């Protein structure tokens, strides 16, 4: 398919690329833009390792045709910490609560947690479990991930 010009906002920066319309967002991110923090686990929108935020909502980038993001704002795991390397509260909590094991689901899990906390700053445990159920983790049993989201929520609150 012939390449077309695509413009969107990526991690706060305007980007403009020539890309074939049959490209999926995850391939543009990983291969075209070398942002490999977003992972591919199943290519059918099931495992959630490819989760990124589109205008703040979590989406599976492995099944999203790239032109769906035209003119919109995409946030990936690389956009979460500041340029100086300062971590987001969620990233920090995932580290300290032991919510990371193999780490392959971690970027997707952190993105889906961010989408939740941005909308619902103090979620109940059931709300957390509901929200993160779109990302599979085979290592942790989810307990420390749920705890990390709770901790991040508390830290965000006390930082205000």
């Amino acid at each position, binding site marked *: 398919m012939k390449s077309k010009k695509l413009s969107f906002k990526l991690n706060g920066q305007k980007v403009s690329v020539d890309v074939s319309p049959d490209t999926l967002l995850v391939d543009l991110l*990983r*291969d075209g833009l*070398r942002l*490999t*923090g*977003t*992972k*591919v*686990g*199943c*290519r*059918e929108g*099931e*495992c959630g*390792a490819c989760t990124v935020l589109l205008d703040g909502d979590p989406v599976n980038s492995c099944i999203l045709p790239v032109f769906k993001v035209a003119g919109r704002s995409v946030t*990936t*795991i*690389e956009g*979460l*910490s500041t340029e100086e390397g300062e*971590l987001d509260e969620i*990233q*920090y909590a*995932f*580290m*300290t*609560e*032991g919510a*990371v*094991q*193999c*780490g*392959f*689901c*971690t*970027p997707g899990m*952190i993105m889906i947690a961010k989408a939740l906390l941005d909308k619902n700053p103090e979620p109940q*445990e059931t709300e*957390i*479990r*509901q929200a*993160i*159920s779109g990302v*599979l*983790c*085979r*290592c*942790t*049993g*989810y*307990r*420390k*991930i*749920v*705890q990390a989201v709770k*901790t991040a929520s508390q830290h965000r609150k006390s930082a205000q």
Partner: protein
Amino acid sequence: MNKKTEDKRKVKVLTKEKLDLEQLIQAPKLAPSVAGQSLVRTDALLKVKGSLMYGADYPQEGFLHGKILRSPHPHALIKSINIEKAKMLPGVMAVLTAKDVPGRNGFGAIIPDQPVICGDKVRYVGDGVALVAADNEKTAQEALKLIEVDYEPLPAIFDPRDALKEDAPKIHGKGNLLSYNKLRKGDMEKGFSEADVIIERTYQVPFLEHAYLEPDISMAIPRPDGTMLVEGPMQAPFTVRRNLAAVLGVPVNKVEARQIQMGGGFGGKEDSPIDLGCRAAVLANHTGCPVRITLEREEVTLQTAKRHPMIMEVKLGAKRDGTLVAFEGVIYDEQGAYASLGPLIPPAGGSHIHSMVMMPGPYEIPHVKVDAYLCYTNHPFGGAMRGFGAPQVHIAHEQIMDELAEELDINPIDIRRKNAFKLGSMTATGQVLDQSVGLLETVEACAENFNWDQRYRQTGYIDRQRTKRKGVGIGMGWYRTSIGISADGCGANVYVHEDGSVLLFSGITEMGQGSFTVLPQICAEELGVLFEDVRLVQPDTDIVPESGPTVGSRSTTLMGNAIILAAREVKRSILETASEMLLVPIERLRARKRRIYDTINPTRSLEFREVAARCMAQGKRLIGQGWWAPPPSSLDPETGQGNPYFVYTYSTHMAEVVVDVETGQVEVTDYVAAFDVGKAINPMAVEGQIEGGVAMGLGYALMEEVALEDGYIQNLNLQDYLIPTSLDVPDIKPVILEVENKFGPYGAKGIGEMPNIPATPAILNAIANACGGRVRTLPADPEKVFWAIREAGGPPDN
């Protein structure tokens, strides 16, 4: 290891409350020692930033893309193969068939019975028939379609019992019985004649998929000096290297296997990197170019090893008071198409023998007989998966224990208390457990945290509509540390530099379990430096000493000991030099937190780095090498008697479930799991293993099954092969107990696999307790639970 406490059994319950964030970050500086602290993982920062490079994240420039043409038949002869059209496709650099394999056309973790490229026949749907390398993935994919293969389908076998029939088609030319093992203890006739009650049951479990989230990848890079580098996620770099050398027909020292951090392994990445590595290397060797093979999720499910399915027949006899007197078991263990990690061929101990040893459970039983048949079939093959043959047999012994308890009208916890291993117990293989046996402690700690005594009596309907019933279940377990039975050992190197910084060389790989954090903790503890002073070198067979595979819950214990021995070699130089510098006798010196000090007068001290610099200046040795092998193991082939493993981890799990008697839907609502781990080097990492292992065991109980029809997998992707989500898994409460292992570093035993094992039967027992229906053929999905309730006479009245 520690003489003072060798004969003193020490039990300590660690607090379940977490340290607060500040303490966690400060822990390395404030803590009295490094080993035993819940330190944050060394790789956590890169992982939360998304900047840790997995195999698929490496740039693809300069690589050819390799693809595998797979058999569409479960069993067929290859009559002819035509690759001419595929070779002509622009962009295709190589199309290889069996004759192009330069060395041995076979690989395998134990027996090299799996062809790199099948020549005369295929044995499962997914077998590799041809290999293609092209300058891009799409072209490689196109080329596969242009290869013409003429097959002659053969009758196929899909049940291990059929495989044993005399007229069964021979999958490997010889008989289909790959291994027959037996265990004999006592006198069965006498045993069952002493029993007041005898019950017989059959349990069946399906193939299971590891479902690690990172699909497999391998990169093979040929170098001008004739060496081959293979990189990728791998649990067993030394096994990969050994296989690659044979397949390429070169000496072992011409192959370098380098581990890239893994997105999960669970035993699955013990096998698959051999397979992919050999195939990528054959293409790379042929083309002279680097070749990269990546698998899509469907290919992972199609091609790679699974957990062995089994049919288990059990007969258990007991006295009226619950005392076990005789156990008889038969295992039909389905190996599938290739031997993988199934059989026992010294120096490798296969999963099959492990199933046999574990089958009678962690109970004292005077008379035991087990017959275990491992059979080839035309299904995908069984390999290692978190528990290596133990999860299956635990499902049998833990369920029959409950069925016996019910028959005798005894509380399931009491029948276990009565028969469970304690210090001095003799196992079914005749092994006397003379140290580190904390099983009964785990029962009591678990019962207390779960409040078993009260909750066991409170089962029944929980809603006014009388559709939902609550129940509780118990599962007990034991698991080895190490490969055991035959050879096993680990090597480590420790280099101290003139500035006091340390490099640690170990071949133990990281798949998420936390070894890259726990091993440096042990090194720092032994040297007396800070955790952050130690950098662990990425495992690479050219660089690190032989360490064996990262399997068998062996890493912390075996490698931990090797590291301690290596560190002590360097420490000797450090302490001798410090003794000269301080004019204090060496036996009065201690190394701790970067300081060497006089224990009588602690103000007399030196910085670790000053002493290291002096050693360097004086030409003293700052390189240490350690090798540790467990005490010898044994197992008589005729009787199955001996000491197959040198130490065991013990565990008790308790689950609460709610069963909807109208739909068969099961929800696990509460969970406590207690473990005797010897010593938790990093309690937070141990908890992580427990919580994740239980979740995996829950999947085995309720939803997971590689669905096969006539040899074809029906659920290739994660949309159809279901694993537990955050909504399926309850808030698991881990309880860590420490009954010192005298052979372990600081008393530690393995924990990686144990948590997975008793979880499945604990949940199955809870379902039976809740609704009276028992599912003996897994998984206990809603349909099976629904019918189990009806078979037991329908939903209970009260």
